[in-house]
Each structure stands twice: as C-alpha cells, then as structure tokens.
C-alpha cells in the first residue's frame, strides 16, 4: 500500500477546501461550539484581527471560480461588469453563504462598493458593512479616520457576539496573525528560492485554505507543508522567473495558474490574496491595538491598484521591488476582464517596468475562463523570449 507524501496530502486537503463551494469547513467550525459566528470578507484587505478577537471566523469570499454555474447572479449584472460580484451574488442567493453571519465589503472599486448595498437590500437579516480605508496616509488625518472606522467595526462585532471586544483580545489576535503572516512570508521566500519545489499552483491552494481555516490552524498547515515539501523529489527546470500582477480580486482559475507554470514560467511573487500579507511586518501586540493596526496600514502595507500612490515616484515601486528582491526576470499582467483598478493601473506599471528594463506580457481572464491554450502560448512565448534575451 503506497502512502501519499505529507506535502501532497496537505495540498490535497487545501484543494478540497478550495473546491468546497458550500463552505462545509466553516459549518463544522461553527458547529463545534455553541454560539460561534463567521464573518465573510471580500478582497483586498480587512483587518481580520478584529473578527478573530470577537471569537468569530473570518471567511474570505472570492467568488465562485470556474466550478459554479451562475444562473441568478447574471440577472443582477450587465455584460460589461466583471465576474466576481455575479458569482458572489449566486453564492448568496443559493444559500451557500447562509453559514455567514455577516459580510464585509472593503474599499476596492465601485463594483464591490455597490455590492455592499446590494447585500444590504438582499440579505436584510445579516450584518453588512462597507469597510472604508483611508487614502490619506497621515496619522493625524487618515489614521484618525481609520481608527474610528476600526472602532465602529469592533463595536459592531462586540454587539454581534453580545460582549465588547477587549484590547487584550485584540492584541492576542494580532499575535496570531503576526504568526500567520510570518508563515506566509516564509512560504513566499521558500517559493522564490525553490519555485520548482513549491509550485505556485500549490502555494495558491495553501493561501486559499487560509480563507476558510482558523488562522492558527492555517499557520500550522503552511509550516507543515514547508517542512514536508523539501524532501519531495521534484526536478528543477530552466524556467523564466516571473511576478504575476493583477489578480488581487477576481481569481484566475487554478488551471490558469497551472498553465502559466506549464508554459515555462516560475511564479516567484504575485498578488493573490493580499489580505494574507497586506501588512508587511509584525504589528506590535503590546500597545493600543487599533492604533497599531492603523499605523501598520498607513506606513507598512502592500501596494495595489486600489490604493492611492501619494507621490508619482511611488507608482510601480512595490512591483519593481518584488521583481528585484525575488530575482524575477519579467512580469505577467493577468487582469480580470472589466476590472477597472487592475486595467487602469496596468499602463502605469508597464511604463515603470519598461523604464527599468523589465519585460512584461499582459492578458485578461475571467474566473470561469475555460480555454487555456492561448494563455499557455502567450506565457510560453514570453518565457522563451526571456530566456533568449538572457542568453545574449
């Protein structure tokens, strides 16, 4: 009887969680103790520490992927609007999200913003909040506003569970997420070092598991994977090292990620599920928790299209840093169709890359894109061109 290597078993478990559109793991978690609640959130970032500190499970909702047949959701959206809101509506209307006691809609774009109002109209018995974040990064201005927004969320969650969320609970949750972010940083560092050993199709599934598992358990899963995957015999190929950019909201199908890899690219950094590494380093867990979370957001957070660059010279620097620190040879811009943030940001990023001599390619996808051959050909041609250039 053959045994499955531990790393493979972990990935299989994560894949099962990823494919489960009925959120059974969330239901099991809630059923394990009376009174447990779960709060859904959409990309890009919400401070999950607050939900966790209230004793609730934060659940990342990333649309329906390529396995969900969208029937009702299409009746709510015009053809020129991206796919993630319609499949999310589908999840809601078909009862798949009944296990959630509330939903948070972060400030990312007009579509997700308006979806918060749709949720208010369609699911009146649920807690719904549009979670605004500051585009002003001064502590006394944007910070003050943000701390107040955090206080509102904290108070709301306290009311939902029946008792206020304390500073001690928040600091404990900050520690839990510091550990989780550290584990994700280790995972990303390892993949950048040995992308053949930790392929992105697996890293992606590990991240997706973090959308439904409690953070403590997820941290363990990531570290167990890292410990186990090293011993797997996996061949190193002469692939091009690339950063994937534009996938921060609507998700590409898993087959698309595999196609990029199969075409001869090693993905050494990306913007999948930025919530897992939005805050770039540890948040102090011994001070005023909301102010610390605010300072981390304002001064030590990732960059993406939904976030204003206060200075022209800041544009593209985060991406350029990803390229340089990960030793990438190019960038693959993969943006969802009709995604205003990603598609409006892209020409600026391309300009920055061009000036820095970093090659790039670009295509669009939808979460239910089925035809991978054109993407494989484009990514393969890009990988070949990088290899040819680097050989000269």
């Amino acid at each position, binding site marked *: 009887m053959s045994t499955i290597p531990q790393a493979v078993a972990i990935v299989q478990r994560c894949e099962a969680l990823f494919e489960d559109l009925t959120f059974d793991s969330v239901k099991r978690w809630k059923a394990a103790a009376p009174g447990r609640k779960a709060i859904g959130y959409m990309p890009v970032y919400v401070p999950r520490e607050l939900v966790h500190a209230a004793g609730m499970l934060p659940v990342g909702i990333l649309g329906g992927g390529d396995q969900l047949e969208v029937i009702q959701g299409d009746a709510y959206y015009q053809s*020129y609007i991206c796919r993630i809101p319609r499949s999310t509506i589908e999840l809601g209307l078909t009862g798949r999200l009944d296990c959630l006691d509330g939903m948070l*809609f972060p400030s990312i774009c007009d579509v997700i913003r308006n979806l918060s109002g749709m949720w*208010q*109209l*369609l699911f009146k018995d649920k807690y719904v909040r549009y979670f605004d974040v500051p585009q002003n990064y001064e502590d006394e*201005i944007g910070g003050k506003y943000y701390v107040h927004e955090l206080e509102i969320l904290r108070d709301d969650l306290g009311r939902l569970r029946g008792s206020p969320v304390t500073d001690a609970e928040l600091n404990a949750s900050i520690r839990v997420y510091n550990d989780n972010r550290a584990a994700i940083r280790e995972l990303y560092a390892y993949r950048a070092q040995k992308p053949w050993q930790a392929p992105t199709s697996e890293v992606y599934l590990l991240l997706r598991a973090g959308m439904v598992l409690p953070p403590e358990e997820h941290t363990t899963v990531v570290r167990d994977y890292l410990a186990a995957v090293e011993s797997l015999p996996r061949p190193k190929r002469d692939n091009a090292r690339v950063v994937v950019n534009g996938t921060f909201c609507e998700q590409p199908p898993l087959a698309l990620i595999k196609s990029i890899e199969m075409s001869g690219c090693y993905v050494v950094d990306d913007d999948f599920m930025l919530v897992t590494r939005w805050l770039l380093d540890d948040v102090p867990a011994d001070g005023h928790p909301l102010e610390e979370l605010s300072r981390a957001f304002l001064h030590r957070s990732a960059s993406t299209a939904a976030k204003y660059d206060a200075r022209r010279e800041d544009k593209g620097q985060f991406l350029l840093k990803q390229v340089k620190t990960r030793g990438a040879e190019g960038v693959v811009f993969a943006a969802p169709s009709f995604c205003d943030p990603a598609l409006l940001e892209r020409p600026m990023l391309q300009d920055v890359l061009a000036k820095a001599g970093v090659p790039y390619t670009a295509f*669009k996808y939808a979460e239910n894109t089925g035809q991978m051959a054109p993407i494989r050909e484009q990514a393969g041609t890009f990988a070949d061109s990088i290899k040819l250039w680097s050989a000269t």
Partner: protein
Amino acid sequence: MTAAAPMPASVKKPQDVQKEDAMWLQKELINRNYRELAEARATGRKVSATFVPGNLNELLMCFDFARSLPETNALQNGMRKKSGKFIMDAERDGQSEDVCTYVKADLGMMLGGETGPTGEALPRPDVLLLSYTGCFTFMKWFELIRHKYGCETVMLHVPYQGEGKIAPNMREYVVKQLKDNVIPTLERISGVKFDIDRLRQYMRESQKAEEDLVAVLQSAKHRPSPIDGYFGAVYYIGPIFTAFRGTPEASEYYRVLRGEIEERVRQGKGPVTPDGEMGEEKYRLIVEGPPNWTSFRDFWKMFYEEGAVVVSSTYAKVGGLYDFGFRHDPDHPLESLADYCLGCYTNLNLPSRVDMICRYIDEYQADGLLINSIKSCNSFSAGQLLILREVERRTGKPAAFIETDLVDPRYFSAANVKNRLESYFQMIKQKRTAGADREAPRTIPIAASH
C-alpha cells in the same frame, strides 16, 4: 479675481422664446470658461482640474485658478463627435477597451496636445484636485495624468456613505484634509493666500443659485412639466456643477432661468426641445444614469417624439444633491464643503438611491423608471438591475433598462434603444388603459445595444 470678470453680453437669437435665452446664456458661460482656460498662460493664471462630483469650485476660486473639468471636456468632445478618435488613440496608447471612456477621451485629447473641445488652447493643469467622491476611477484617472504629464496632485478622500448617512467622523476627516492638505497645496501652487471670508462670499452666491436650481428642477412636479428633468436638466446643471457655482453670473443665470420656467408654468407650457415646443405630455418618467453624449439629440428625440418627458433624474444630482435641503453654508464653510462632497449622488449607497428614486416617482407622479445603464460607469451601473427590481416592487410602476455609453460612439445602438423605448411606452399605455395598477409590474429586459 477669477469670478469678478463681467459676463459677456448674451447674443440674442432671433424669434427665440425665453427658455432659449437661458440656454443661450448657459452656453455663453461654458464658452467663457473655455476662453479663460485658453488665455490662462498668457494671463499668468494657474490651471486646476477637478471632477464634477465633489468639485470644490468655491475653494478653487479663492486661489484664482482657471478651472478645467475633465468630464465636461470629455462630454463636450462627445457632443462634438470628437471622442471616438480620442478613445481609440488612448487605446492605442495602452488603455484597455474595458475601462471608462471619459478617462480615455480625456487621455486621448491630451495625447493630441493642449487643445480643448472648442478648438481653443487647453493648458495642462498645474494641479489636479483629486476629489475622490463617489467614483473609484477618478483616482486612477488623475494618477494616469500625473504619471504621464507630471502634474501635481492633491487627494481629497471622501468616504462613501456605506451606511446611508454622513457620520461626524467622515465630515471631520474631509475637513482635516481640506485644512492640512488641500488648502496649503493650493496656496503653494497658486501663490495666493487663502481667505476664508472670500470663500464665504462665494458660498453666499452658491446658496442663491442652489435655491433657484431646486425650484427649476422641482417645477417638473407640475402637469405638464415645464422642463425635461434629464435632457434639459443637463443644460441647467452645467454652470452650477462646473466652474461657475459661487459666481454672481451663475446666480443671475439661475434667477433668470427660474423666472422663465415659472412663466412657462403659468402658461401651462411643456419643455422646449431642440425641435421647439414639445407636444402633448403623454409619459412622465424618472431616469437613472448619465446620458449618452455622442448621440445626445437623437436620444432625446426618441423621448419627445413619443410625448415622453423626464420629470426627474438622478444624473441631475451627480454634482450636488440640493433638492433634499443641502445648501452651501457660509457660516460653516469647510464643514459645508465636506457635506457637499459626501452628499453627491454616486456617494450614496444603493438603499439610499432606491429610496430617492421611489420618492421621485411619488412626488413627481411619474409613470415609471427608466435606467440608462452606462458601460463606462460602474459607479452608477453596478447594482442598477437590483435598483430596478426594488423600485418596481415598492412602487408598482413599470421599469425599463437600456444600455449605452457616455462618449464612445461604438456603444450607442439607436435602433435597439428606440425599439426598447417604444416597447416601454406601449407598456405604460397598456397598463393605464387596462387599469392594470393591480397587476404585477413587468420588466423590459436588457437591450443588447452593442
């Protein structure tokens, strides 16, 4: 001073009725602004650019800026049939076919040099006042201009009314940005010191114009409506939503306009259309969503030829929501600017938008709701199909849905839109004659307009 220049004499068109005079005056104002922009370099004035929703015209005037509004430039180019080329130029320059055509029309125009919609010079702005009000794309728009042309940008982040109200924290945040970021930046770029009494004076003018604008828009509660609250209203809102709110000229324009409209009410007249007086008022509609600009007159004609008048529209509130009581307040100038920005229509959450439309249907005795869904504008469009269902459910009035675009001529299918409108008017008529108010409302399905 920016606003102190005397208004050019209005050139009278022969045989025009009073309404036409006001329209002519409005055009003079808009053209005057383009002339000021064209002469800005020669006269040593700095140029600002800002967006219609949340535009801080009174504040910008305090610093003597010549004021450009990129959305207005785009729509002017759309009405002049220039936007199609500009959009394609921008797409060739790397912009996606999926994104907002206002952005691409503006970027395409700038690629062609410093020439504006009227053919006169339109200098690149010295400052981009990024009023982040009700539209995420605004942020990317000015980032793109800043990236290409290096224009200095100052952000005014206006929080969204996610809970359907303006919380004190939101107002304080906007005021703090105004005090600590926006005003010091405008002072530095313009070289003009901020004078809050000057701001107060402009706001007193704003109040007068706002009062008269509301009277004009609410005149549509009469039967027949003396105005079209959508196609006509886009002319009425021009000065107050752009570079003239706070000027004595705008106050005068709205005073004259109000007088003319009140006279039409007394005479029992309907709206004036491009083809003259409108005939019998057969259908009274509420419209949600911006108009199409590239075929604006053809679009309007599809309504007035059928006797349909738009009695109120959400678009006429995009640059300021005055009909529920808000007025610029000279006694609390910065707080008032904050409330103005926070209260613009697209900064309202969907439940508030539904409430507002239902209220319009009731107060204006409308026959139904028409949604003109704009491909470019997710801020308006995302969620409109639910708005439609909710409004139908609450009011029992029929609703219809058409799709066009702002300034991309490729997305206006006249035959489809006309066909859909005719079906909708027929449905309203049948509903009336059959006494069908007890029946469940029917929805006209989405028109495939492209």
